């Protein structure tokens, strides 16, 4: 047990019922002492009974590890719901559509399995979004592709065939 403070509790607690008074410097240590000293606690509570609420108990009988796990799952669910709800922000919606369009374009290109020669294409005369040329021997420019669609955490899988190549872009945050 720590030694009882020399100042009287009457003086230490006087500020608690005087809105103009400041806290005495010794108050913090004195209040910490209350927990260990029933005599001082009795004396202090007799002057200011609201001090008893300093002893409000923690929530008993709760396993906070499992509470935290429940929280994680709940928050994860709320985030998922927020993603699939109609977007209020047009900008966000536009970004999602851009990502979806980018993915679709990449998948189509990859699926051809042959190079795209833009200079020979009739469509090339029409101004439009730049489409990356695919080399003759198709190699999936995976890193660049992922960067281009703005999904740096995505994983890209390729099921390659002679005439067909299937590309899967897996990104848990993408809900198109």
């Amino acid at each position: 047990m720590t030694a009882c403070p020399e100042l009287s509790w009457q003086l230490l607690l006087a500020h608690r019922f005087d809105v103009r008074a400041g806290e005495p410097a010794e108050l913090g240590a004195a209040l910490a002492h209350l927990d260990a000293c029933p005599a001082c606690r009795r004396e202090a509570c007799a002057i200011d009974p609201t001090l008893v609420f300093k002893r409000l108990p923690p929530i008993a009988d709760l396993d906070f590890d499992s509470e935290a796990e429940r929280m994680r799952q709940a928050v994860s669910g709320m985030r998922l719901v927020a993603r699939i709800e109609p977007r209020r922000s047009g900008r966000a919606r536009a970004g999602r559509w851009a990502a979806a369009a980018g993915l679709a374009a990449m998948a189509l290109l990859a699926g051809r399995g042959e190079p795209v020669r833009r200079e020979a294409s009739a469509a090339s005369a029409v101004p439009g979004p730049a489409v990356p040329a695919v080399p003759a021997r198709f190699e999936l420019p995976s890193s660049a592709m992922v960067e281009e669609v703005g999904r740096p955490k995505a994983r890209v899988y390729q099921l390659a065939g002679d005439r067909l190549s299937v590309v899967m872009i897996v990104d848990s945050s993408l809900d198109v």
Partner: protein
Amino acid sequence: MLKLVHSNPTPETPKWSEATDRELLLAMREGSEAALAALIGRKTKPLLQLTQRILGELEEARDVVQVTFFKVWENRAKFDDRWSPNTWIYRIASNLAIDHLRSRKSREKSAEPVRHHLRQVGEWRSQKDFSRLQQGEVAGIFRELSSELSEKQRLAFLLREVEGLSSQEVAEILSCRESTVRNHLFNARKLLRRELVKRYPEYASRRVQALEVEA
């Protein structure tokens, strides 16, 4: 054959248990879900305790804390690293808890069963003084009396007196000046003391009773 052709190299995972709250929030700002998970692990207990004390109901406190973490995540980009992380998170939780209180009009809830129980406890206690109340009894009395406080008074009292935050931190959480916090605290203590003496005279010392009569 299906082959993995691209995967982001696994970033070096910081030891989140050793990261400060600020580091967690900054990592969340960069999109780290692991940091969010770590923050939830760290803050669930204090936030549940605070909101349970504000609301008086554990289930409602759980709901509020869930929404708090969700809002922390959704607003992570707005976190300014000059702010105190604790203050920012407590402010979100406190505002949500107050909204919750308002929506259910907790003041209309009857506290009579608690009071009745505590009167019985008091009757068989030989030496009656507040310092000898058991923790469960303290919680019951606080639940009853705090419904008389305004939301701001209750919050200021809990954050300062029970959670032990500084007046400055409480002022930041409540978005007000420190002098306003002192006013809230003063009024909360005054009201709680008056109600304690009125409802539980058997516990109040003669000194406090005399003060209340004078008041």
